[in-house]
């Protein structure tokens, strides 16, 4: 509708739109990597080792002569995949646990939340490393490990939000028309706690990218020759003086995607804030 379009409040949504654009570009690159990237990320070219940026290799080449632009684009796939799956795992399980704890209360609440606090008390990286060590190093395990790191945060948020909603009159009204517990959870509670969870999810995305990079940097995430921003940074560390672009390019990629997700998160918080609704 034309009117809806012109009524659209661009100012209110500007952060979400800016962040969304950055993430959309990265996502498109990730999804269409084989077509977007000029070279294969695995092709070695010993003649063109550690070349600085040039028309043939816009972002230069690495120590094995692989095109850095192509590797960065392909690495976006892994980072995005990890971000979405890890944040998804955190969101789904965290919400489930948090809502259950608040809704049933009593002993269920006690047991679930004490367990969450136990998880929460580990430093995130350490927890991920421990999980990776027991699960084995693979990118799938990295996603699960990062997802588990997020569960306590989401569960606390979901629990607090659910407690607020449970005190609302409309939940009682829902009971008064004969709604079952499951229906109350899905129709009355979930839609009303979604806003803070979405904001948290956006932050979790950016955090997941950082965590994955950190794990790959430590050699626990994506395994070479598979490119990931983290292991590219790790490689670049050895050539900081001869070929600084090896560190700058993946670093910039991490920076941009984290910025994008944080902008979305901040923007969503403003847009979804009930005090700012007209």
């Amino acid at each position: 509708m034309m009117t809806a379009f012109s009524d659209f409040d661009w100012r209110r949504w500007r952060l979400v739109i800016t962040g969304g654009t950055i993430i959309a570009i990265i996502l498109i690159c990730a999804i269409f990597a084989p077509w977007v990237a000029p070279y294969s990320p695995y092709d070695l070219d010993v003649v063109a080792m550690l070349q600085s940026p040039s028309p043939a290799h816009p972002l230069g080449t690495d120590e094995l002569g692989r095109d850095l632009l192509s590797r960065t684009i392909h690495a976006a796939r892994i980072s995005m995949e990890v971000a979405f799956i890890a944040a998804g795992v955190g969101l789904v399980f965290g919400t489930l646990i948090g809502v259950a704890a608040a809704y049933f209360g009593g002993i269920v609440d006690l047991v679930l939340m004490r367990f969450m606090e136990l998880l929460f008390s580990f430093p995130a990286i350490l927890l991920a490393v421990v999980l990776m060590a027991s699960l084995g190093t693979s990118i799938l395990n990295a996603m699960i490990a990062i997802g588990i790191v997020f569960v306590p945060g989401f569960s606390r948020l979901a629990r607090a939000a659910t407690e607020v909603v449970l005190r609302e009159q409309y939940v009682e009204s829902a009971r008064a028309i004969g709604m079952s517990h499951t229906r109350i959870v899905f129709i009355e509670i979930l839609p009303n706690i979604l806003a803070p969870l979405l904001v948290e999810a956006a932050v979790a995305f950016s955090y997941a990218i950082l965590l994955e990079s950190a794990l790959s940097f430590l050699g626990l995430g994506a395994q070479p020759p598979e490119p990931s921003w983290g292991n590219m940074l790790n490689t670049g560390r050895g050539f900081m003086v001869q070929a600084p672009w090896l560190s700058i390019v993946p670093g910039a990629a991490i920076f941009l995607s984290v910025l994008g997700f944080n902008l979305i998160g901040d923007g969503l918080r403003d847009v979804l804030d009930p005090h700012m609704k007209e």
Partner: protein
Amino acid sequence: MTDLRAHALDNGTPTLRIRDLSIEFARRRGDDMRVVDRVSLDIWPNEIVGVIGESGSGKTLTSLATLRMLPKRARIANGTIHLDEMSLHDLSEPEMRALRGDRIALIPQDAMQSLNPTMRIGRQVGEPLELHSGYTLSRAREAARKLLESVHIREPEKRVREYPHQFSGGMQQRAMIAMGLALNPQLIIADEPTTALDVTVQAQVLKLLREIRDQKGTSILFITHDLGVVAELCDWVYVMRNGKIVENGPVRRIFTSPQADYTRMLLDATPSIHTVPQVTK
């Protein structure tokens, strides 16, 4: 009008019969606190019964007990509640759930607070039909449109697509009433449904409740602390204080010759009700 009861007594059972109902709150220390004490009341078909009393007199707890929705720490210590011939105490939770919204409807005090802010009005008003009659979403929405029309909401086809915050206070309350009416319940429990509304809107809502009773023969339990509303709407009145019923009778008698001291006190405290009709007559 006030002889309705005598008439009803001839042929059978009241819609709702509460006998010797006592409700207690568990306390951490000491004995349980009795907040409703041996309350008995009847509501017959086609009758609007008022329960008046100040806040904390146990009016709302009595109505919540009827729906078996007492707060966690409260329990029924004693007494029976029958809907028609059925003892509500003996029903399982799923059976009770099937009853709520279908045969007993609750119209709450604050409509704004009672509507889910994230759900469109049409969906909410049609919800009881979805729950109890297995309506599809689209059929429930169409029914919701008709229900809104029946409570005199203009442009119902547009309104069903709106969210609660787009409704005015009076419209929200009427939407709640529409939702209560969805399944043609035998009993409507209206818990101070007009308290949050201004006087003109209040009059519309009262008129609507009377219409419902006249057209469908629904029994209405009307809980309020507003004597003016009682005088205007109810056939029979129970006066509650400190969890006990101190007096009951046809509305005219309660207003003209109150028996209990407390009722007299209430009437004296609201001079407009007691004196204005005499002046205008």
